[in-house]
């Protein structure tokens, strides 16, 4: 006899209890502290802040703990929390040229003002599992004080570290994007829906919140012939910038805090058009925290998405606004893919009926009229 599926509420409660148990794991192993996650899983924290669109290391670490390390789930937690926060002010544009850079490299000039500063990077590590990390309390190697190739740290700040784009712009070799008078406020996709064609500010916000894996694949596709944009990593810098707001009652800017960001200026070839002389164009990437993969991929995709504006043929997926911007958000994607877990009895019943009907028709002998 059919038993109606009752007791959904208790089943959900039990599922939540099982989840809590699974998250904690073996209770004999010490609980992870938020500070440990924040300090020792800093790149996970950075990704959650970037795609969660909320700069708060502690909350991001909490979300990672609650999500048992599932970063997309952690991003979800942070975004849902963020949606309830009031908007107090818009910040002034951050000035990355004044960044207190812990790392700055350029792939287009061997040396440049401020120098190449390697800072902390996995780039030159040999990817050998370091079994000494499995032991507890390993001593951390000390940074040598002479700062060759950039030991990083605050001392770099003293030196002028002009951006590569600015240097190229002095010669007019690269496009500049000085804000026009009456430059409209950037669109905020968390308040207004995305519409097409999307403005560049909307596109950049979308990409900045976009899934790192998705952007990586889209950026990669542009390097493999799907919308080749001849990119050079003009400059990548990571460090601390000040955030300022201009309170209405004061009328001048005050600093409200510091954030870490990674910025990528991609420099791309451009043959010129009837109205524009040949010059380099730019793709731009920016992410909270330390995320070079994300900001570089973002810069590639940003440049590809400018195809229409620059009079290039729109042929590849990475150039198609609707394709890229509608599918970049991992919460939208994850939710909709996984909604297939929800019951679809009714739709499936309708399909069953249709397939049976079509099969019945298929098995009937043809009476000549259905020859087509």
């Amino acid at each position: 006899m059919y038993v109606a599926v009752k007791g959904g509420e208790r089943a959900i409660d039990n599922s939540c209890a099982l989840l809590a148990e699974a998250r904690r794991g073996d209770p004999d192993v010490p609980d992870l502290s938020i500070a440990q996650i924040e300090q020792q899983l800093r790149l996970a924290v950075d990704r959650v802040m970037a795609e969660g669109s909320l700069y708060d290391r502690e909350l991001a670490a909490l979300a990672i703990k609650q999500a048992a390390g599932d970063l997309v789930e952690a991003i979800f937690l942070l975004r849902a929390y963020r949606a309830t926060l009031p908007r107090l002010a818009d910040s002034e544009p951050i000035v990355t040229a004044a960044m207190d850079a812990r790392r700055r490299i350029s792939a287009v000039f061997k040396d440049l003002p401020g120098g190449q500063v390697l800072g902390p990077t996995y780039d030159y590590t040999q990817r050998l599992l370091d079994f000494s990390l499995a032991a507890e309390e390993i001593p951390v190697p000390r940074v040598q004080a002479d700062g060759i190739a950039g030991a990083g740290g605050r001392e770099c700040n003293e030196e002028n570290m002009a951006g590569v784009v600015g240097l190229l712009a002095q010669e007019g070799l690269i496009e500049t994007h000085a804000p026009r008078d009456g430059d409209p406020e950037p669109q905020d996709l968390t308040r207004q829906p995305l519409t097409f064609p999307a403005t560049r500010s909307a596109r950049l916000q979308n990409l900045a919140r976009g899934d790192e894996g998705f952007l990586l694949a889209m950026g990669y596709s542009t390097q493999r012939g799907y919308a080749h944009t001849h990119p050079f990593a003009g400059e990548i810098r990571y460090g601390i910038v000040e955030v300022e707001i201009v309170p209405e009652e004061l009328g001048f800017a005050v600093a409200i805090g510091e954030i870490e960001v990674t910025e990528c200026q991609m420099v791309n070839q451009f043959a010129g058009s009837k109205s524009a002389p040949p010059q380099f164009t730019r793709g731009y990437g920016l992410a909270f925290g330390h995320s070079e993969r994300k900001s570089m991929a973002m810069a590639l995709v940003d440049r590809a998405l400018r195809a229409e504006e620059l009079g290039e043929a729109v042929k590849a997926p990475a150039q198609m606004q609707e394709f890229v911007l509608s599918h970049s958000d991992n919460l939208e994607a994850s939710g909709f893919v996984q909604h297939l877990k929800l019951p679809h009895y009714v739709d499936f019943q309708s399909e069953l009926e249709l397939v049976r009907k079509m099969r019945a028709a298929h098995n009937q002998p043809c009476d000549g009229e259905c020859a087509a």
Partner: protein
Amino acid sequence: MNALDESVLDTREAGYNFAYLDERTKRMIRRAILKAVAIPGYQVSFGSREMPLPYGWGTGGIQITASIIGHDDVLKVIDQGADDTVNAVNIRRFFQRTTGVATTERTSAATLIQTRHRIPEIPLCEGQILVYQVPIPEPLAKLEPREAETRVLHGLAEYGLMHVKLYEDIARHGHVAATYDYPVMVDGRFLMSPSPIPKFDNPKMHMNPALQLFGAGREKRIYAVPPYTRVESLAFEDHPFEIQRWREACSMCGARDSFLDEVITDDNGARMFVCSDTDYCSLRRADSLDTTQGEDQ
């Protein structure tokens, strides 16, 4: 930064506004709803928020419900016609936690019904609001994925694409090969997705005394069918619209006029059919029980 002070840790339900959304957001959504009601079937963009439930799991419907629910409302939540499927339970719990309003499983007792994939069997009446959860609001999406294009097609009421698709179905199969999310024309003007309800439910939308609101959170669209509005399922004169019929009756209540789910009952594939609308089914069983008891006396 501010982070983990007690106010954050203590919030949970208590720290959130009535029905979760803040009042400014509700007002923004209500404006979109008003516009949608004023232009039946037209998809209004709105600043969809990230809800604490996943996109694709009813966030559009939840945002509409959250924006219009009041303390005196009586809420019913169904998924596939049933009040007790897990996602319906979860959404109902969400509103119980954030509003404390009364909930019900009785269609006739509800002032506000949020649904996924069904319209209740018991006819709705004036004053009731039916909120649909919508995955893909654009009826033309499968034929033209670019939104910039579909907007123009709607603007021009140019629905040739859809008619050709239906025509091709008929040419190939002898009938329209769509059984749910069957496209409708609203008030003779806008082509609309009724959401993935079975086409069995389509006729219920026509001239319905209740207000029907549709929310697509992930796609950031709201649309509406005001009370007593014409809603016609697309068809051709020589191929009129038809709804599903079953040879079987509901094994539990004997209904022959409701949408039946097929349930597999053993390893040999034995089947039975039961009403997908659990409230309708249980009401009918209660009625027949009353009748038999009456006869016994």
